[in-house]
């Protein structure tokens, strides 16, 4: 295998060269503890302030509303548990959706064991919630609405501004998991009425192991990691200085070039989608045609199973992802595909290809050349396809 085509940018992204260059000095040279008052400490503190401002600018927040965490999952856990416990006196009801990332879903399930009640909103066949469902779910005990900005599997974007509006009118805090949205959609926390938001560096060409939580000034929350006075006494632990610097640089780059970046992805995405539909039968595009992340392609290939598809693609150097049960070690296919109302047997055959900064037209051409052959080969082995062919004979 020589050619390698990476089409899993939604899983993680490479660190951009400029980002890595900016991080470098903070490992071995400017290694001081930012909390220290001497020169080594000051050298490490100032770049944190710069990074915080860059990230704040990327989402229309104030720097002091950005709290660094270890990633999107910690941000989700902190925001949801922290707001829930800090506002328990006001109520114990939380509203979320059935298609959230596990970092939100499993956190909500945990809270259910501690006296909270959670409503998991349904989505339509394209993965969008309906605002009336949200309004109906609100009770006088509702303290938090947590609805993801954009879905990681099918790329569907939710009506965030309207959700924020409803939350605001009902005096309920609104958290959104924007891990997939950052860099791919314009975000302005004020315009969108967002009170709290999770973001993660490694999805925007920054390093892994660093993320942030946006928290609007005044929102009541408990600390998640207790200890030292870092992050305005709200998130303890010696700061991951190089990680923070890298995240900040990545946020700056993605903000500066957002339009171009989105355009680039959109073109390739359309080419890939159209190419697949032209070349392969019995396929179904998952997600929404309009409210969709610019780099997301998610197809069902009937009669075949996702893992064998991924494996075959890997053998020709193409990296994708699947909502197949067999890749996750669980029995059921992705909860997202199930929530769309897809039958189990069909949901097993999904393939997600996500496009990013370094994807080229040639990459897409290569996929459009290889994928049809692979699908055909697997279908020829499938007893389900045999039945269909039989029926057609």
């Amino acid at each position, binding site marked *: 295998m020589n050619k390698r085509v990476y089409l899993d940018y939604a899983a993680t992204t490479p660190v951009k060269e400029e980002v890595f260059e900016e991080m470098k000095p903070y490992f071995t040279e400017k290694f001081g503890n930012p909390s220290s008052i001497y020169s080594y400490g000051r050298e490490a503190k100032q770049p944190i302030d710069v990074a915080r401002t860059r990230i704040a600018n990327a989402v229309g927040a104030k720097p002091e509303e950005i709290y660094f965490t270890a990633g999107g999952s910690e941000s989700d856990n902190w925001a949801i548990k922290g707001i829930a416990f800090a506002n328990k006196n006001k109520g114990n009801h939380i509203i979320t959706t059935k298609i959230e990332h596990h970092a939100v879903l499993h956190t909500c399930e945990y809270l259910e064991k501690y006296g909270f009640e959670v409503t998991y909103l349904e989505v339509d066949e394209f993965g969008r919630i309906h605002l009336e469902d949200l309004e109906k779910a609100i009770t006088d005990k509702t303290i938090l609405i947590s609805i993801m900005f954009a879905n990681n599997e099918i790329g569907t974007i939710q009506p965030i501004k309207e959700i924020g509006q409803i939350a605001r009118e009902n005096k309920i805090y609104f958290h959104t998991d924007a891990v997939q949205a950052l860099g791919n959609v314009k975000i302005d926390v004020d315009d969108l009425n967002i009170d709290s938001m999770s973001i993660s560096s490694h999805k925007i060409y920054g390093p892994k192991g660093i993320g942030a939580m946006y928290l609007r000034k005044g929102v009541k929350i408990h600390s998640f990691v207790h200890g030292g006075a870092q992050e305005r006494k709200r998130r303890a632990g010696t700061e991951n200085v190089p990680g923070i610097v890298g995240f900040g640089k990545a946020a700056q780059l993605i903000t500066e070039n957002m339009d171009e970046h989105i355009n680039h992805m959109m073109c390739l995405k359309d080419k890939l989608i159209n190419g697949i539909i032209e070349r392969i039968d019995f396929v179904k595009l998952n997600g929404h045609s309009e409210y969709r992340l610019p780099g997301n392609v998610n197809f069902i290939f009937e*009669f*075949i*199973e*996702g*893992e*064998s598809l991924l*494996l*075959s693609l890997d*053998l020709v150097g193409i990296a994708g992802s699947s909502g*197949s*049960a*067999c890749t996750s*070690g*669980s*029995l059921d*296919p992705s909860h997202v595909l199930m929530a769309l109302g897809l039958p*189990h*047997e069909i949901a*097993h055959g999904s393939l997600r290809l996500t496009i990013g900064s370094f994807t080229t037209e040639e990459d897409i051409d290569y996929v459009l050349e290889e994928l049809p052959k692979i699908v055909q080969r697997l279908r*020829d*082995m*499938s*007893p*389900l*396809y*045999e039945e269909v062919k039989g029926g057609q004979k």
Partner: protein
Amino acid sequence: MYTEKVMDHFMNPRNVGEIENAAGVGQVGNAKCGDIMKIYLDVEDEIIKDVKFKTFGCGSAIASSSVATEMIKGKTVHEALAITNKAVVEALGGLPPVKIHCSVLAEEAIKTAILDYGKKNNITFKELEGFNPTEDHHDHEEE
């Protein structure tokens, strides 16, 4: 994640296909769980002359089917019935823990096909007493 043997059988599966008017056909698993195996047997004098399979499933399901067909081809049905899922796993050089159920499916697909052959020919196999392939063989390891 997979051994070379698994990858070889996945990429170059032996005995893919169907047998028209097969002596015995066995299908196990279901699409809901993400894997279905169908085995076709051609039997003559209790000897498995030919065997073909079709599988819908993950890499290890396909590899398990392939290696299982290879293991029983040319054998007597009794020899075939003696093949356990462990033997399948061994023949593949091992499977990840979450994929062991694929080898179980392969064992059961063979047994189901032989059961079908027996039914069609009014033979009862002692080895199949109490054999009752369940629909759901997933026994994934959970913490």
